[in-house]
């Protein structure tokens, strides 16, 4: 009849069966989902999405109901051009909230670890810098992408369900808009990661991101005003995200042409990812 005193468990066999990237990403996601902020954004997105769906349905009614024929003529005048309409599925109001959300959520990803000084501990586990950054990037890129997805797919599905291939949303719209969403989330993700690594706390990183966006927009505004050429707005990441869906949907006269958009996107992504990399080196980790 032994007495089982509480002791430490025996040493387990350690066989890493999972990449640390997934472990860290899941841990961060769980924390993010606990934030009360999420509910607010959920409501906002729901409302914006609902408005868009209602517009599509009304559009369909206008097309099919003969009693509304006169209204239809009027609506045809008011309703935007098809390509612009497709692009507006990812429009600026929705992107504004998305920017706000990534500034809040992604901004905290690295800066929270800096604040609580978690990174030395992370690197004391079998985790390389690549793993660490990848796990953060997975979330930083994934969240904006996942939010944009329903804005593309739901109107498209509704449109197909109610009107078949002749609905207001092109059948091929997702093929154009999903790449736009990917590009948008890459821009958002890399900028927020870079700013987050510069800041010492989540609050400061929110400041960094907002400041960065404001300053670059102001700079872009001044430059485009001076040159009377709107392409200078490509300096502003917000303008970039607004631009991609238009370019890919083939809107004829986009504010910023393709080339400046592509170049500015490339520069932004490289610059901010490089900053994030420099600021999270393992050799600087243990104090």
């Amino acid at each position, binding site marked *: 009849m032994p007495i089982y005193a509480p002791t430490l468990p025996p040493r387990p066999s350690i066989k890493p069966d999972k990449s640390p990237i997934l472990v860290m990403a899941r841990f961060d996601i769980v924390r993010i989902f606990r934030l009360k902020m999420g509910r607010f954004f959920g409501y906002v997105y729901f409302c914006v999405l609902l408005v868009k769906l209602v517009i599509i349905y009304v559009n369909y009614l206008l097309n099919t109901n003969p009693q509304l024929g006169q209204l239809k003529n009027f609506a045809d005048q008011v309703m935007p051009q098809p390509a612009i309409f497709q692009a507006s599925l990812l429009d600026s109001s929705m992107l504004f909230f998305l920017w706000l959300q990534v500034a809040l959520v992604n901004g905290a990803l690295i800066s929270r670890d800096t604040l609580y000084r978690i990174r030395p501990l992370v690197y004391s586990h079998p985790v390389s810098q690549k793993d660490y950054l990848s796990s953060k990037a997975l979330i930083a890129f994934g969240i904006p992408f996942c939010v944009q997805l329903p804005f593309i797919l739901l109107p498209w599905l509704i449109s197909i369900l109610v009107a078949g291939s002749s609905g207001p949303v092109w059948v091929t719209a997702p093929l154009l808009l999903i790449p736009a969403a990917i590009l948008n989330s890459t821009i958002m993700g890399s900028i927020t990661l870079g700013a987050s690594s510069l800041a010492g706390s989540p609050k400061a990183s929110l400041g960094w991101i907002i400041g960065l966006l404001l300053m670059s927009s*102001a*700079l872009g505004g*001044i430059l485009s*005003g*001076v*040159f009377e050429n709107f392409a200078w707005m490509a300096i502003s990441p917000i303008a970039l995200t607004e631009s991609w869906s238009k370019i890919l949907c083939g809107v004829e006269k986009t504010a910023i042409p393709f080339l400046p958009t592509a170049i500015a996107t490339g520069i932004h992504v490289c610059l901010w990812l490089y900053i994030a990399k420099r600021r999270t080196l393992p050799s600087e980790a243990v104090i």
Partner: protein
Amino acid sequence: MRNIPSFVETICILFRGYLPRVFKARGWVLAFIIMVPFVIVHIFVILGVVPNPARLALELYHNGYASVVIPVIALVSASACISEDIEQRTLPLMLVRPAPAWALPIGKGLLWFSWCSTWLLIVVTLMQLVGMEVTTIPRKIIALVFTLWAQLGLVSLLGLIFKRGILWAGIVLFLWDPLVTLLPGTMQRLTFSHYLQSLAGGQYSINNMNSLLAQAQISTPFWLAATVLIAVGALAWALCGIKVMNMQIGLSGRESEG
């Protein structure tokens, strides 16, 4: 008996003590924020690509400096003032010294105010290079500097009273103040923009979007507007002093409740 520094002495000590700080990163960021819009515009003027420089200079002044740069530097420099000491938990170290505690906020505030004012002075003076009319320049400098004085005081006070004071101040300066174009006559007197424009003798910047709702601009006499801005600033700093004087601020940094 030990020597106890007076109010003025304390301000001088703080001014001298923190002086090297303005030559560090934050000081240069402020100078940068102030200089950059001008420098960019100036480059284009030199390149000769600007059709109407005189209009551009006014636009730069009103849309650039009056409505964006001043609030931004007020927010940035206010977070370098007394709230920095609270955040770094070094305020208790100053409060256990005999120097009058109510001189602490303004002592530090004056330093950052002077630093930013110097740069504003330089930049507005230089604006004649991009076509600003020389005779209006003194008015325009006074308008910016006095507004900064009042805004800096207000931001510091809010930062001292509220936990997220700087955020509230941001809301006041960036959401409330631009509404000036939409406000009826007397309500316009509750914004900084109104006094700034009264001093500078200019128009509110009107956003295209809001132009439908725009109200007629009223104006306040120059000397009255100047007095109001100085008084608002002075009152804010005085309230900051009173707050610090009575604040039960423990070693943990934040004000201890109770």
